[in-house]
């Protein structure tokens, strides 16, 4: 009880970032993510960390990448319009394998849309927003407590796989206040990037290692290397040598998607014991869970698979979960961005419950959809 207080999702994100060891925040405040910047601005100077309000989102992500290259844990927080502006540089972080975290508190789009209101419209953008082939990791929390732990996990995954990681909050969770019961001194696992053990002259910053993740020296520690947005060889210099280019591009995707079983997480309810399966994430998963409980109380066998890891998609897991179900129902705050991915994976249509009017999907909408399919 001692630690129980009412905390907002965005504040939990800020607290999680500090717990993970975030040393730098560079950002340009934007609704509905602004509270993250506000909390970082207040807390970071008190722990000797650095908060900088940048001139825009492009500068923000650029500074994040620079700080992260020196070995600091760095992140930014934004929403739709800012997330769009950051896409090119997220590609830079991907090709140069710079660990960093981008928090996107999704709001209604496209464009300026409805700044204060909720949506889950950036699901596909989080995966494919930046050009070229590379994998990405994106996580989506469903509660304030989970936002705290998931933010820590984002930093850990970024460090472990040398990749930008996206925390996909939605406005509902970012602005939701609920019970928060975390001991600030609790011990949590903190992962730091692998360091080179070789002599500086032997260091290959983009080495094709067995685990697909090369060691990353901190800038300024004597391991000199070249960092470029151009496709590069293991030393970091521009390369258009076919086998090198091929090996590099394949490794960028393989280092994440080839290791999916090491980090992919979901919360499953009656997935093996149901006829109708909801697949839902973020705020909407709470609606789906309540609908599931209502329907099960009526004797209708309903389950819920809640991917905590939105990207990459765990094809084997989704396929197995959907096998033999009478229907798969995907409720979300967009016109079917994740449903489309589920359909691709399972090779057949799913039932959609979509809302793009800024209100959260209602429990009765999910209940009605199952009853409609039942007939």
């Amino acid at each position, binding site marked *: 009880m001692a630690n129980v207080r009412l905390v907002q999702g965005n504040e939990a994100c800020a607290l999680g970032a500090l717990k993970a060891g975030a040393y730098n925040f560079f950002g340009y405040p934007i609704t509905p993510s602004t509270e993250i910047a506000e909390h970082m601005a207040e807390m970071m100077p008190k722990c000797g960390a650095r908060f900088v309000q940048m001139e825009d989102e492009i500068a923000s992500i650029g500074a994040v990448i620079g700080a992260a290259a020196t070995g600091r844990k760095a992140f930014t927080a934004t929403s739709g319009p800012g997330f769009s502006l950051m896409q090119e540089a997220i590609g830079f972080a991907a090709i140069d394998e710079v660990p960093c975290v981008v928090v996107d508190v999704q709001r209604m789009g496209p464009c300026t849309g409805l700044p204060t209101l909720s949506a889950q419209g950036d699901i596909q953008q989080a995966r494919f927003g930046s050009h070229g082939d590379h994998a990405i990791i994106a996580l989506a929390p469903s509660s304030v407590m989970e936002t705290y732990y998931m933010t820590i996990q984002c930093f850990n995954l970024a460090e472990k796989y040398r990749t930008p990681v996206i925390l996909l909050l939605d406005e509902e969770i970012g602005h*939701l*206040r*609920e019970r928060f019961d975390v001991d600030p001194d609790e011990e949590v696992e903190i992962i730091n990037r692998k360091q080179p053990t070789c002599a500086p002259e032997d260091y290959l910053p983009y080495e094709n290692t067995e685990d697909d993740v090369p060691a990353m020296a901190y800038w300024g520690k004597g391991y000199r290397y070249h960092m470029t947005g151009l496709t590069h060889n293991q030393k970091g210099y521009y390369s258009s040598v076919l086998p090198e280019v091929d090996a590099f591009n394949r490794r960028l995707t393989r280092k994440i998607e080839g290791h999916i079983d090491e980090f992919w997480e979901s919360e499953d309810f009656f997935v093996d014991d149901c006829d109708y399966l909801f697949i839902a994430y973020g705020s909407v998963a709470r609606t789906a869970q309540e609908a599931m409980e209502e329907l099960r109380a009526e004797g209708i066998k309903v389950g819920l698979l809640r991917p905590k890891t939105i990207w990459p998609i765990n094809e084997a897991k989704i396929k197995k979960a959907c096998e033999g179900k009478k229907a798969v129902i995907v409720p979300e705050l967009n016109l079917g961005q994740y449903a489309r991915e589920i359909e691709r994976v399972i090779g057949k249509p799913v039932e959609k419950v979509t809302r793009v009017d800024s209100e959260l999907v209602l429990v009765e909408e999910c209940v009605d959809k199952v009853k409609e399919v039942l007939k």
Partner: protein
Amino acid sequence: MSSHEKYKIRLSGSGGQGVIKAAVMLAEAALVDGRNATQSQVYGPESRGGATRAEVNISDGPILFPKVENPGILLCMSPESFEKFGADIAPGGTLILDGDVGEGTKGVKNYRIPITDTCRDLDPKGSDLSANVVALGVLNGLFDFVSRDAIVESLYRNFKKKVAELNWKFYDAGYEMGKNAKPFEL
């Protein structure tokens, strides 16, 4: 004594009236009492005006759907908020109207309570700044959602000490009005 019912509450008003803050204080007090609560809000891009709604769920168990679609308790502190949300109230629910706001709703318990006027009367400068704290008092006077100790703790968590102390008389005035209020039906 606080009760152990499950409550779905919506506080609505004009941006700047502090309905979100009142909702935060109520939800925080519920946590202090060892209960579970969620608090959410919907507001427009304007920092003043517009119709703001803040919602609180209070329960002893887990709260999944975090918002309030059909409130059992609806507070309207501006004419616009009554027009916008008046029809959302659950049948048999409780509607609280501030002063001359709205005409009431059929099939519910209506209360007309001079929340903002009471605040102005109590404030030495005639300000309505603490109307949200009067409203919090009214709500707890009507329902006793949370204990007085929890409200004390919540006020101190949400305001600086001096401001919290100044707010006591506003809360108490609201609580008394809530305790003594008589409903009317349409």
